[in-house]
């Protein structure tokens, strides 16, 4: 096989949205010789039944994904200080002062309670 034949097909990744407000969701990949055909193939391959609000096709070469090392490295990071669960101990503290700890809802709601 010549190089030209080998380069004929490119891998495209397909994403779609179910509704206008839904987040973009990964579907699958496909082989196509160019972007327009990738788009047509995406419709044929992944939306024979479902009606999508939008379809994106992206050449895989243009996407930077995580390597195995990066995925494994990020897995066990302790980020409790960035999340409410890191501040759960305050509940007990406030009780000592005969106060309820403000919940996420209370804080977000502007302190109505």
């Amino acid at each position: 096989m010549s190089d030209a034949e080998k380069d004929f097909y490119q891998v495209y990744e397909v994403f779609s949205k179910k509704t206008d407000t839904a987040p973009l969701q990964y579907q699958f990949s496909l082989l196509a010789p160019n972007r327009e055909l990738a788009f047509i193939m995406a419709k044929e391959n992944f939306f024979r039944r479902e009606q999508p609000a939008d379809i994106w096709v992206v050449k895989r070469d243009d996407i930077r994904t995580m390597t195995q090392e990066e995925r494994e490295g990020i897995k066990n990071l302790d980020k409790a200080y960035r999340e409410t669960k890191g501040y759960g101990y305050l509940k007990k503290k406030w009780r000592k002062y005969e106060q309820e700890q403000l919940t996420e809802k209370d804080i977000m709601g502007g302190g109505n309670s």
Partner: protein
Amino acid sequence: MEAVYQQNIDHFMDRINNGEKIEADDWMPDDYREALIRLISMHGISEIMGALPEKEWVPKAPTLHRKLAIMAKVQDEMGHGQLLLRVAEDLMAPLGKNRDDIMKDLFSGRLKFHNVFHMEAPTWGDAGIIAWLVDGAAIISQTMMLGTSYGPYGRALKRICAEEVFHAQHGESIIMALAEGTEEQRELLQDALNRWWTSLLMFFGPKSKNETGHSNQDKNMQYKLRTKTNEQLRQEFLTKYVPRIWSLGLTIPDPTLRFDEEKSEWEYADPDWSEFKKIVTGNGPKSKERLALRVRSYEMNSWVREALGKRPQHI
């Protein structure tokens, strides 16, 4: 060097045993990659070759509704082939191979496809039995692999299984109409069942390597590519379908078939595994014809692929 390899393999097995999914670019042992390529390219090509016996029935479907439904099914099967070949070719890329190599392996007979797709489908009853029972058997083995350790295969199977539900119901609808039809229609259905029964038992493969000389079951289980043996799947199939077949008043062409309450398993006449081997190595009743059809359409459509591939003129 050996110590590094051992470290890699230990880490890999830990990941698998922890239920993590392996991705295409992750480190994997060569025999894991080989097992996946063998399994997935065979599965993908079977989807494509499997569309051929059904496609024969598109122009001959008895009603417009049936024609639309069987056309949709044929299109789905080709779509499944596309998904699976994508998964296989990502695994083959590091070996310098691509989809063309899969097709060439199919044409040369090196790559095998499921025994059922080497068989004839002479009547509309066959179209019904294929969709009901062949797809029913395929669903049993595909859902078993949904939890496979290889991420991309699992994701492809999830899409495939969702569509198989429609296929199974399409099959049930055909056989139900025939079973509740005229005497002639019931005979058509019974004949088709007689033709397909042995192939259906063979579909799940031999119990062990004793029957055919080799088996990849153990390795595939160890690598969590599959979770059940061929025989477990066949037993599930029998439990699921035999009572339904009998309830329609059909006869299964195996007088020894019975459920052994004590052993809690089905007893059946073992198919002739040498015949199975003959079929899957390309010597079944329709093997050569279907392969020739595939080669011909691949060659005849090459100009279409080429024409569509021309880059559109951007303004």
